[in-house]
C-alpha cells in the first residue's frame, strides 16, 4: 500500500498499459526527452523508446490526425495536449474526422486525447480551460474527467482499452493536491459511463465532476456541521455518456438538485443534466434545479479575478442552503 498523487496514479496507469500492450504508444509536445510539461510522462521515453514515446512538432491537428490514422491500423495511440486549451486547434480533426469515423465509414479509431485542464491555478485564459462542452455535443466521442487518484488511474486504463475515441481530462489543480492510497498488485479499471457516489446524503444532490467534486465535498461537510444539512455528492467521472441512472437515482432520493461545474454557465453541461432530470424525474423534484458554475467570461489571471469568476466552496454552500429552504 502506497500513497500516490493524482498525477502519479495517472502515470502508473499509462505505464501499466504501455507495458501490457505494445500497440499503445504516445505522441505529443515535449513528452519524450523532457517528460511532459507536468512530468506525467517522465521516464517513459527512456523505458519504452523514441518510437513509442514520440516528441512531435507543435501541431495539434497533426497529432490528433496521426493518432487517428494509427488507430485505424490497430494501434492504441495516446495523444497529449500540452495544455488542454490547445485541443481547440484539433477541434476539426476530433469532431469531423475522429468522431464520425465509425459511423460513416465503419472505421475503428481507438485513441485517447488527454491533457491538463482546469483553473484555480492562476493560469490565465489559455492555460485554465475546461473544454468538455465543446465536445460533449459530438456523437462518437467519449469524455471522462476523473476527480480521484484511483479514477485517474482507472479511467486512463479504461480509456486506452476502449474501442472508441476518448477525451481524458485531467485537472491540474488535482495533480499534486490529491493523494490516495492505492492497492499494489491490483488492477484498477474504472468503467466508462459510471458515476461515483462520493458522499451519501438525503437533503439534496450536488452533481459535479473534476475539481469541483472536492469543493462540493467541502461544502457538504460545512453544511452538515453548521446547518445539519445532509448533502449527497455525485461525481460523474464520465461526462459522455452521462450516467442517467445514477443521476436519477440520487434525484429521486433527495428531491433537490444542485449542479456544480467549473466550466462557464451558458451551454455548459449543467443545462443538459437539468433537461434530463426534467424529462426523467420531474415528479420527484421539490424545487428548481439550480446551477453553480463559472461566470460567462474568459478566465482571467489575477487571483482576485479568477477567484471571483470560478465557483468556490462558499458559493456551493450558499446555493445549497437556498435550495434546502425552498
Amino acid at each position: 500500500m502506497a500513497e500516490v498523487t493524482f498525477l502519479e496514479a495517472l502515470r502508473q496507469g499509462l505505464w501499466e498499459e504501455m507495458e501490457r500492450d505494445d500497440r499503445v504508444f504516445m505522441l505529443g509536445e515535449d513528452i519524450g526527452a523532457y517528460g511532459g510539461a507536468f512530468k506525467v510522462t517522465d521516464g517513459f521515453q527512456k523505458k519504452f523508446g523514441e518510437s513509442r514515446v514520440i516528441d512531435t512538432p507543435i501541431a495539434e491537428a497533426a497529432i490528433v490526425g496521426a493518432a487517428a490514422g494509427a488507430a485505424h491500423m490497430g494501434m492504441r495511440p495516446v495523444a497529449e495536449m500540452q495544455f488542454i486549451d490547445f485541443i481547440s486547434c484539433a477541434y476539426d480533426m476530433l469532431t469531423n474526422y475522429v468522431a464520425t469515423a465509425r459511423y460513416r465509414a465503419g472505421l475503428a479509431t481507438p485513441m485517447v486525447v488527454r491533457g491538463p485542464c482546469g483553473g484555480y491555478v492562476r493560469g490565465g485564459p489559455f492555460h485554465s480551460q475546461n473544454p468538455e462542452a465543446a465536445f460533449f455535443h459530438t456523437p462518437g466521442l467519449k469524455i471522462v474527467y476523473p476527480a480521484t487518484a484511483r479514477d485517474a488511474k482507472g479511467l486512463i486504463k479504461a480509456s486506452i482499452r476502449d474501442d472508441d475515441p476518448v477525451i481524458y481530462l485531467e485537472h491540474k489543480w488535482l495533480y499534486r493536491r490529491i493523494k490516495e492510497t492505492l492497492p499494489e498488485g491490483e488492477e484498477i479499471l474504472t468503467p466508462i459511463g459510471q458515476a461515483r457516489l462520493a458522499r451519501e446524503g438525503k437533503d439534496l444532490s450536488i452533481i459535479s465532476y473534476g475539481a469541483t467534486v472536492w469543493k462540493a465535498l467541502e461544502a457538504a461537510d460545512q453544511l452538515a456541521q453548521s446547518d445539519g444539512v445532509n448533502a449527497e455528492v455525485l461525481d460523474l467521472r464520465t461526462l459522455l455518456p452521462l450516467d442517467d441512472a445514477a443521476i436519477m437515482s440520487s434525484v429521486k432520493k433527495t428531491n433537490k438538485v444542485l449542479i456544480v461545474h467549473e466550466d462557464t454557465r451558458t451551454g455548459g453541461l449543467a443545462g443538459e443534466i437539468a433537461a434530463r432530470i426534467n424529462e426523467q424525474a420531474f415528479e420527484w423534484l421539490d424545487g428548481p434545479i439550480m446551477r453553480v458554475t463559472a461566470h460567462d467570461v474568459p478566465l482571467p489571471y489575477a487571483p482576485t479575478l479568477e477567484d471571483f469568476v470560478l465557483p468556490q466552496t462558499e458559493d456551493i454552500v450558499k446555493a445549497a442552503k437556498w435550495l434546502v429552504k425552498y
Partner: protein
Amino acid sequence: MSPHPLPTTGPATQGPPAELERSQLLEMYRYLRLTRTLEERLVALYRQSKVIGGLFRSLGQEGESVASAYALDRGRHRDILSPLIRNLGSMLVMGAKPIEILRQYMAKAESPTHGRELNVHFNDLEKGYLGQISHLGDMIPVMAGITLTFKMRGEPRVGMVYVGDGATSTGSFHEGLNFAAVQRCPLVVIGEYNHWAYSTPPEKQFAVKDLAEKAKGYGIHAVTVDGNDVLTVYAAAKHAVERARRGKGTHFIEVKTYRRKGHAEHDDQSYQPTDELERWARENDPVDRYVKQLLENGWVEESDLAEIDGAVKDEVDQATDACVNEPLPSGETSLTGVYADPVATPRLWYRES
C-alpha cells in the same frame, strides 16, 4: 494569352517504363476508360434524379489518378492511398468496384456506407483505400499516422495521399506535411494542380508558382510533372513510392492538370474561360494522349482498346442494372454504430412505435 498555359510535357516518352508490360499498359487503359465510362453513367443517373446528392467529375484528371495509384503495391494489406473526390480512378485501381460507386451515389442500403456517406467517401483498408472527409487537407495528418504505423512496425508498406491546389492553403496540409517530413513517414503526396478550387484560381490561392515549392519548404523531396501524361506520372510515382519504401521518407509529386468540369455537376463553370476549356480538351486530354502513345509506339493494337471499351461498357451496364432499383436504407438503421459500445443510440420516445 490564357492565364493557364498547358504544361510543358518534357522529353517525349521513348518507350514504356521498363517494368511495364503490354498487359499492364492495357490494364491502365482499362482503368482510365472505366473511370470515364462510369462517370458518364453517373451523369445519366444524375439527370434522372437517381443520384441523391452532387456529382463530382474527374474529367481531365483520370490520367494522374490512375497512373499514380498504379505505382503502388496492391493487394490485401499492402499499400494504402487516400483519394479525393476527383480520384475515382485511383480507387478503381485499388479495387473499388463500379457497383460500390453507383450504390454510394444513389444512397443505397447496400452501399459500402449503407447510405451514410456520399460518393467516393468510403474505404476498404484491406484493399488499400481510405475515403476522404470533406474537410480538405485532413487526410494528410491521418495518412501520416497510417504510414507512421508502417514505419513503427517495420512493414515495407507505403501510403499515398492526394491534395488539391486549393487545399494546400489549409492548416492541416501544412501540419500534416511537416509531421510526415519530420517523422520520415513512407508517404507520397500527390499535389493536384488542377487550376480551380471550386471557382478560385491558383493566383488567389497562393503566391508560389509550383506547389512543389511548398513541399520543399518542409525538406521534402518534391517534383513537378505533366499530370496529363500517364506514363510520366507513373514513372514519377513509381520512383517516389520505391524511395519511400526504402526508408527515404516523405515525397511530393505535383501533377499539373486541369479540371474540365465544374466543381460539381450543378456548377455552370461560368468562371472558366471557354477557350481554355476547349484547348485542354482538344490538345491535352490524358486518355487521348495515352491512346496516341500506345498506338503510335505500336505497344498495343486498336482492337485491344476497342475490346476493353466494350468490356467496360458491359461491366458498367451490369453494375447499374444490378443496383439501380435497390432500396434505400430504412430510417432506423441510422441509429447504430456511432460507438462500438453502446452499439445503438436510443430511439427518441416520439419515434417509438
